């Protein structure tokens, strides 16, 4: 992805770091949580939202330019 101009790079860098942490731990929990856990559907929503946020990053970077 291209680096935006102005102060946005630092903000987007920090946002990407937070997103990496959320996505990584959601991935790990999806892997480790038992299939029949009552929390699995909730976790799947977090996991899906993380991937959706990741897919929005190019649009977010365009807004920062």
């Amino acid at each position, binding site marked *: *992805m*291209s*680096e935006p101009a102005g102060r946005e*790079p630092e903000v*987007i*860098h920090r946002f*990407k*770091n*937070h*997103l*990496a*942490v959320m*996505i*990584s*731990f959601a*991935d*790990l929990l999806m*892997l480790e949580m038992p299939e029949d856990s009552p929390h699995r559907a909730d976790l799947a929503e977090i996991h899906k939202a993380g991937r959706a946020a*990741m897919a929005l*990053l190019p649009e977010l970077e365009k807004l920062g330019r």
Partner: protein
Amino acid sequence: MPKQVAQPVVLVVDDEEPIRHAARRILETGGYKVLDVENGARAVELLTDESIAVDLLMADLEMPELTGEEMARQLRAKRRDLKVLYVSAYVDRLLNERPILWEGEAFLEKPFTFEGLSEAVSLLLFGTLKPPPMTRAS
């Protein structure tokens, strides 16, 4: 049955503790031994001890003071076989500064995923998306 390999050691260098924690969990789940430090100077200091084996350096490019690239350059001068996975929020920045990646180097864009990090590390170390079975070091 694939041949077993010795458990590789990955050194994770990132100034953000939650990123180091996430990378450590992912890599340990994949069977790797993981060391982590918070900056390039600590990594250089750690690897002055020749008894500490490291197979792959996971280097954040956007660190204050000693950058990931400078740290990797210093470490590879001493340990020529060290593989390096550069991690960056901006692949374009890396490509501008390093249009050519040397053998044994690769990059991964943040935010990384479990699959992305696992596959990048395995590709660098073994040339395959999944690592072979490992014998755990004690």
